[in-house]
């Protein structure tokens, strides 16, 4: 029996699933307890697991991630919430310089089984400092795994995989997706990190999208179908590990590639995907490798302006038409 639940409720279900299974899993962060999180994604967890395992912290992002890291290296499997992914900038040392490098520097003496979950991306009119899509920052640092689910089912399955993984995982919850719904079966759900999903089959162009851009890519595929263009849509799901095989196999079939990225253009994850395809599937290509991104600007707040710059269904359609023509 599948149940229709929101992406928001999927967060709670995912955390509860893992905390019930493993006593060493703890949740810490600003307002995660009584308040149930600023997006209400952790509401109810305090009641079930109590104030020791679901614990509020001061507004001290370095202290939050430091606590998670020190605990992970000594036997716990902490989940740390950073309320908005923009705030990762205040504790980037912990993420990029401490967590990412410690296993390597110690030649494997230290293991860091921890998850940083954070509300990422735009679409809620929060302006430039609460709307960034920053998954690329994490992707650029060796030693971090980077996951960004697009729907409730994947959120639960990938979150479970992240908690059970022995490496630090940055888990980006796209905040505009919290109210969106999807079908989720009963029982435990666990998926595998580093696995992309073909969410729509096609033959003329491969669209690779992530998180909030997946639904838009599917809508674009509907419109392209009306124009006689058959688009295959891949939900990338995680940036590290990257499922290069699924992308390459798809491009070998369609001979065309379009990436759809919420991040600003320069050094977005799509540039890595494009370069990979250029190197490994070049002789299969029949059209320009095309990227649809937010332009290289900070995000504006006004709804009209934000809608203007985030990749729209129309821009994805246009990108695909360019790639196939």
């Amino acid at each position: 029996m599948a149940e229709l639940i929101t992406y928001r409720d999927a967060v709670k279900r995912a955390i509860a699933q893992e905390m019930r299974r493993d006593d060493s899993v703890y949740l810490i962060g600003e307002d995660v307890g009584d308040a149930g999180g600023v997006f209400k994604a952790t509401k109810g967890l305090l009641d079930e697991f109590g104030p020791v395992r679901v614990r509020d912290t001061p507004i001290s992002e370095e202290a939050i991630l430091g606590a998670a890291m020190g605990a992970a290296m000594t036997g716990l499997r902490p989940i740390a919430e950073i309320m908005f992914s923009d705030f990762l900038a205040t504790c980037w040392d912990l993420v990029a310089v401490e967590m990412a490098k410690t296993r390597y520097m110690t030649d494997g003496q230290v293991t860091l089984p921890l998850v940083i979950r954070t509300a990422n991306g735009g679409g809620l009119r929060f302006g430039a400092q609460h709307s960034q899509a920053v998954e690329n920052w994490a992707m650029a640092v060796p030693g971090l795994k980077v996951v960004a689910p697009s729907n409730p089912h994947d959120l639960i399955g990938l979150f479970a995989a992240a908690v059970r993984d022995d490496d630090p995982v940055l888990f980006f919850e796209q905040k505009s997706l919290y109210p969106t719904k999807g079908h989720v079966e009963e029982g435990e759900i666990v998926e595998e990190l580093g696995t992309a999903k073909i969410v729509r089959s096609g033959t003329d162009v491969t669209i690779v999208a992530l998180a909030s851009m997946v639904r838009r890519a599917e809508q674009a595929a509907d419109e392209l179908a009306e124009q006689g263009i058959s688009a295959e849509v891949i939900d990338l799901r995680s940036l590290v590990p990257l499922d290069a095989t699924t992308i390459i196999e798809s491009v070998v079939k369609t001979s065309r590639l379009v990436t759809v990225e919420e991040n600003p253009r320069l050094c977005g994850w799509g540039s890595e995907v494009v370069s990979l395809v250029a190197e490994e599937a070049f002789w299969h290509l029949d059209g320009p490798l095309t990227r649809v991104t937010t332009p290289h600007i900070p995000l504006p707040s006004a709804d009209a302006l934000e809608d203007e710059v985030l990749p729209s269904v129309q821009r994805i359609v246009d990108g695909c038409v360019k790639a196939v023509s």
Partner: protein
Amino acid sequence: MVQARFPEPVSDELLDIEDKTRLELYRQVVRLRRFEERAYRLFMDGLVKGTSHLSLGMEAIAAGVATAMREDDYTFCTYRGHAHTLARGVPMDAVMGELLGRQSGVCGGKGGSMHLTSVEHGVMGSYAIIGAHLVIANGAAWSASERGTGQVTVAFFGDGATNIGAFHEALNFAKVWELPIVFVCENNLWMEYTPIDSVTAVEHPAADRASAYGLESIIVDGNDPDAVYDVASRAIGRARSGGGPSMIEAKTYRHGGHSRADPGTYRPEEEVEAWKARDPLGYRDRLLALGMDEAELVAIEDEADADIDAASEAAKAAPLPDLEAAYTNVWADGGWSWRN
């Protein structure tokens, strides 16, 4: 011209410490001194690559605190961490091997002088970004408290760290969560090339801030092994019995410069001389005055000399790391792959 900062007068209070503990403190101080002197020489010979931050003159702090710790307690230290790593019992040859970039190094050559780690000795890492390890140390203390192991975490750091955000976040967090942790500030009066008091709003950069955050706060003569051992024992005992976090600010002085070949000439000569007159190795005189057998002290010194010679030779003779090691242990599966 920088004004000289002289040490406080020596206390004539004789602490009640067992002879065998005093001998252990002396053994530690001597071994740390011998190691740092040799590390400096090997750096100048070009065998220790990159950089190197020595604890010459500051050995009594690592010695005193480590001697007061339980074997399974955790330490977190900084890029100036040779002494703290050795004081927890990590063998000299494994540390020297790491400094020389050899396979025999405690991190297989992948850490270097600034990242000495030996989890089996409770040495949870040497961190080279100022202040970062203070918040990480909190996590180990939190974990120990949740797991009910009674382990205490000690975090060593320098005076310069007291003006960075992570220090303040760490202290507040440790107190709010009542963590079993002892912060140990080695206040050697100089950050790198600038006196700490010229950039700090309070007189005691660690202790004054710690009091404000509600931590038990203690200032101690960091060149006196007995005094450090005594306050560390009490702070560690308090943490172990659920009494929460403490701050020890140990006043000390580095005999050399900040790092590498820095001669430290920016410091007034009379200041350097006054502090060198308070060398922690002066502890030897106290032990003799207490009637200890000089032959026992000489045996400790001879053993340290032999060990540092052996460790240096072993490190020099050790093979370089396999080049394959560059590609291992990015991930817990042992590998480095980011794609399929």
